[in-house]
């Protein structure tokens, strides 16, 4: 328990102590919300799809979460050689506890980041369908954050240097985001795109967020939660396995 607590607390402390990092990582979501939300709004409305900003906001929350959580998970590439991780590797604490604490900490931070984007979206004009949906939406954010933190740790456990990191950002995170239905409605997407989106776990995260924040879901809440939980469990298991095999 000590190991889980320490690793969690460390992530949270680091987050709270770097206001510049928080502000910096809100810049991109803000840009997307303003440029796409306002820019494509009239086109979206003319196509009879309603308010684009309302549609977009859950997607951009999903974007902030996937970026933050995968980035956090991948920080172990640095920590492996330089940081606190090596010190934890020789501590009498199981690798599982360390990996789990780290994932929880990264997920907490990413979910908080998602919540900040939600506040920001509200400030620029997003209106959730009901305020009662906020609490369950936060739970979904935490679940999505947990999933992608575990993905980040799984991938980072197998990488030795930062070159791989950029590759992962470009070949994994970007496609996961753009193909997830965060930016466009899956209900009217071409079949091929819809098929791809069905294999993207972020699609289900964004869909569940839309369910609680805008009141409509393409896949349905039950399927969303089922997939999110199953994929999270899988990557927690795989991440724990890979993490336990790290030799420093």
């Amino acid at each position, binding site marked *: 328990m000590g190991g889980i607590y320490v690793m969690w607390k460390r992530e949270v402390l680091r987050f709270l102590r770097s206001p510049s990092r928080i502000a910096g990582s809100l810049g991109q979501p803000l840009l997307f919300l303003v440029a796409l939300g306002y820019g494509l709004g009239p086109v979206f409305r003319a196509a009879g799809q309603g308010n684009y900003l309302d549609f977009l906001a859950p997607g951009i929350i999903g974007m902030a979460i996937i970026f933050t959580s995968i980035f956090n998970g991948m920080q172990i590439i640095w920590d492996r050689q330089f940081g606190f991780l*090596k010190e934890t590797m020789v501590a009498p604490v199981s690798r599982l506890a360390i990996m789990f604490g780290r994932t929880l900490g990264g997920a907490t931070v990413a979910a908080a980041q998602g919540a900040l984007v939600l506040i920001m979206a509200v400030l620029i004009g997003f209106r959730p369908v009901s305020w009662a949906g906020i609490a369950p939406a936060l739970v979904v954010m935490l679940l999505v954050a947990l999933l992608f933190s575990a993905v980040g740790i799984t991938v980072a456990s197998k990488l030795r240097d930062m070159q791989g990191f950029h590759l992962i950002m470009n070949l994994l995170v970007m496609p996961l985001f753009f193909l997830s239905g965060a930016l466009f409605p899956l209900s009217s997407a071409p079949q091929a795109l819809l098929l791809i989106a069905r294999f993207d776990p972020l699609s289900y995260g964004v869909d569940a967020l839309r369910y609680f924040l805008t009141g409509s879901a393409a896949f349905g809440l039950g399927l969303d939660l089922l997939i999110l939980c199953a994929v999270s469990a899988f990557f927690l298991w795989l991440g724990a396995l890979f993490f336990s095999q790290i030799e420093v």
Partner: protein
Amino acid sequence: MTSIIEVKDLTKKFGSFEAVKGVSFEVEEGGIFAFLGPNGAGKSTTIKMLTTLLHPSAGSLRVNGFDPRTDADAVRRSFGIVFQDPSLDDDLTAFENLEFHGILYGVPKETRTKRIDELLALVELSDRRDSFVRDFSGGMKRRLEIARGLLHHPKIIFLDEPTLGLDPQTRNHLWSYVEKLNAEEGITIFFTTHYMEEADKVAKKIAVIDHGTIIATGSGAELKAQTNTDSLENAFLALTGSEIREEASGGLDHMREARRMWSGNRK
């Protein structure tokens, strides 16, 4: 005297490359042991096996009576370590770094707080208790790492090139702490260094490793007598030759660079 570390025919292979080729040595309980060798000789690999970070390919080893392969946690509780590269969290304070270590090692809160204060006083960092480690100099970080390594009252402390990059004043200070700990607390010291005069001055026993094999053991005086030289540096060169070693460089160097870039950008 009993041995606190016993290593017999220890071997580590990375694929077809044999980094450590059947080394055997013993470290006396309460002793100061220097483990010397050129770059890439197998020092760090051996330390990693002793400290449960790497699994040996063959051979036997005991640390404080426990086998790192089967009793990893018992071994981990027995030693403290100062790594070659800094392993503090720069974004935490000195106190938090120690506090987290104490929690990881299951030191109860009251004992923990008391010991942290004592250790910070020992390494003369009491007034920097709540400062962020990123603002510390190299020497201060080293001292903090030593304090951290001692927090759980280990029987052995491993120091992997602890004085690398430190000025003579700090090095001198650091070795006085270490000798004091050894004399007063009876903690066994196991260290590596490239500064031969340090090893000669501090170590009671020295082992020289090269190309994965131990090529000499004994006190500084014995090694000098054996090679008919007047300083440990010359003895070391006589034993290992004067050819410059190429250490395999890889991801680590790239990352050092990347990290410098990133931490530069962050400010």
